[in-house]
């Protein structure tokens, strides 16, 4: 297995190179650059040229790309072209903020999905199943930004229970204040994450119930509850463990829209601002990080799958 993991990790490198090159070229293909997004009509052509030179944007595209790549290989993600701040430092400040929001929301969504999914699956075709399935379909179809605005209207404005903006009231750093700011975006994210997981749990419950072993158990006289508790639920829940791996990239890019709406100082607003102004070192850094997490997450998912289900092998047996 060590060999397998090693080989998979090696495959990551060309993939990341390819991703970075494609993203870089797409940014270059955009009809304007970062300097266009910050110049004003008051600037002379000479001033604009000076700014462009300072950012190295007057060099050929490939020169810019390899200069950037060289720095990244030395562990230097570089500086934002607009703010001139260190990207590593910015990310180090923003990723924890995103994690604080995403992890509780994801775990809540997972718990809800497991509970409701099993319940719905066990009552396949009945009213409660149709209700849960319908609700998750609506949840899936609801854009998070719209739901966020509803939540703000109800809890922030109409009931005036929670503050709307940011993570802290300025000048207050205590936990209670953080929690009061946390509730609304957490609720929105939970509702955003839950439906997909729920449908996954429900459908695998339904398909497990159709398996032969259920019929056999019944033939042996086991009660419905026993079959469900001892066999079906286990078979449904084991693959869920692998979801932890697949969810890994959410830690960085899981809440872009929600964070932006609530002014939560995470990766989301940072990424959106950079994208708007074509601040390419920032865009590339976040996409690389996110791509790495997708690849590593899938690897973890594969490994966990083997660990929880001994019938699955990573490699073809050497016959």
């Amino acid at each position, binding site marked *: 297995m060590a060999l397998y993991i090693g080989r998979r990790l090696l495959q990551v490198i060309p993939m990341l190179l390819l991703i970075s090159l494609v993203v870089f070229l797409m940014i270059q293909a955009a009809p*304007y650059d970062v300097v266009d997004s*910050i110049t004003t009509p008051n600037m002379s052509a000479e001033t604009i040229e000076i700014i462009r030179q300072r950012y190295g944007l007057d060099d050929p595209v490939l020169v810019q790309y390899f200069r950037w790549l060289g720095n990244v290989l030395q562990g230097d993600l570089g500086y934002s072209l607009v703010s001139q701040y260190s990207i590593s430092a910015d990310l180090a400040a923003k990723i924890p903020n995103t994690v604080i929001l995403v992890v509780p929301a994801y775990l809540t969504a997972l718990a809800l999905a497991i509970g409701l999914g099993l319940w719905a699956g066990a009552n396949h075709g009945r009213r409660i199943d149709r209700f849960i399935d319908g609700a998750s379909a609506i949840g899936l179809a609801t854009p998070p930004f719209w739901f966020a605005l509803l939540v703000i209207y109800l809890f922030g404005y109409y009931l005036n229970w929670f503050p709307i903006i940011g993570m802290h009231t*300025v000048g207050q750093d205590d936990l209670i204040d953080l929690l009061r700011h946390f509730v609304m975006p957490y609720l929105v994210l939970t509702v955003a994450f839950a439906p997909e997981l729920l449908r996954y749990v429900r459908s695998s419950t339904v398909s497990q119930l159709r398996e032969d072993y259920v019929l056999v158990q019944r033939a042996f006289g086991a009660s419905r509850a026993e079959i469900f508790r001892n066999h079906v639920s286990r078979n449904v829940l084991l693959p869920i463990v692998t979801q932890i791996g697949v969810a890994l990239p959410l830690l960085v890019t899981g809440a872009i829209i929600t964070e932006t709406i609530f002014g939560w100082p995470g990766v989301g607003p940072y990424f959106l601002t950079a994208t708007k102004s074509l601040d390419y070192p920032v865009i590339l850094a976040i996409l690389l990080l996110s791509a790495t997490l997708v690849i590593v997450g899938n690897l973890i998912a594969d490994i966990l799958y083997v660990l929880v289900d001994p019938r699955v092998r990573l490699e073809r047996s050497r016959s």
Partner: protein
Amino acid sequence: MSLRTTALVVAASALVLAGCAAAPGATSQAPDPTSSQTAPGGAATGTFTYVIASDPTSLNPINTSDRWGLTTTNIVYSPLARVEADGTVVNELAESIEPAEDGLSVTVKLKEGIVWSDGEPLTADDVVFTYTNKAVKENGNADLLWIGDKPIQAVKVDDLTVRFELPSFSAAALSNIATETYIIPEHVYSGVTDFSVAELDPIAVGSGPYKLVEYKRGEYLRFEANESFYGGKPAIANLTLQIVANADTVKAALQTGEVDASFVTPAQIADLTGSPIDVHAYPEGRVAYLGVVAPKVKDVKARQAIFFALNRDDLNKAAYLSEEYFQNAYSILPPSNPFATTELESYAQDVEKSKQLLTEAGAAGLKLTLGYAGADPAQTVQATLIQQQLAAAGITVELAGVEPGAVYSEIEKGADSAYDLFLGGYIMGIEPDAYSLLFRTGASANYFGYGNPATDALFDKGITTADLAERKAIYADLQRQIADDAVFFPIADNLKILAVNQRIGGVEDAKPAPIYTLENFGKLTEK
């Protein structure tokens, strides 16, 4: 085997960690509804919270040019003087400003007893230091301090007197010296070798109404009153600029009183009635316009035909909803500019004339593409309306709503541009010569590909004429010339709308101002 164990341990610890992080989520279900939150129109908190839409691009007074960078700079630092909306010069740090008779120098005396927020005196050395560094082109904002190919030089006369020496006469010099140059302390920054950076270190020593005490990027900038401010200690002890990008979030936060003030759009005002909020609409001297890429529509009659087909009133009412929120613009200068004239071809709608001009130009069945900022609600409404209005004259318009940066880099291609028309807007200030950056042949912001030797000659004449009445006549001719050449259809000076919670007073004393929001945030009070 051991690897399998390790992986299990990793997975387990991940779950535990996640569980830890989840714990606060569980308790958060029971918030304290009675805990303090500023009630709308509520009591004094000692803090004024103002929403800005993004981080300032630069906090360095030497090179900042973005809206929020200039807003912050204007709070922390002070200029020698300001040019007011009517063109008068109001002294700030300066006690007096005396142009020499020959027009080749300006002598500035500083007020006595002004100190920096760290207690050091503000002297002529600081002024010379600031202007000398700002005039360095590599620092990125030197344009106003150059006349032709030579910089304006600042020379210390005595501790409180500075003489600005001009390489040649320029009628714009006084305005250019005063505009947007904020004095920085030499004793703090004398060791800085590169002034092209976005932030000076430390960022906290200034001579404005407030001191910057904390900057959390992406969240807020926090200020405290500068007790030694020469304009009087601010009435509200703390000021916060809170960064919020989403306009709907801002609206809700204004309604709940979580923030005190923000710019809003005309469409949002209807939702704010019923909340304890006052609305202040004021001109920024902006001109919103429809531009023609002249190399794409070469015949002046065809361009005039386009303009005669348009209805300015309808464009403005549709985009800005109420006459309280815009003034029609008829010239390259905003209506509030003291040099603006209304005696010019204003292209009142005349569809028959438009059709006739099209026939004369042999351009019947003209097809055009209009580029505009697709995310801008006002431009989107106007673009759609322009399409309809031109259709009535037989001109077909295709709409291209894109990012603003993309519009400008496309039209700069001139004859190869994909767009024939575009929507834009600018704030160029009081000094009419500043507009030469847009309309002089080959100028840096001449998006129109416009070139007329007569216009260039008028710009040359205007900048070298000292007499005010004479200058006004020259710039009136210039506005008429550009109107006749029909590359620029002025639409409106759309007013900036500042929404302020009623618990805050003194907005008019603080003077709503273009770009900076308020001239002096220190004049605000809590009721």
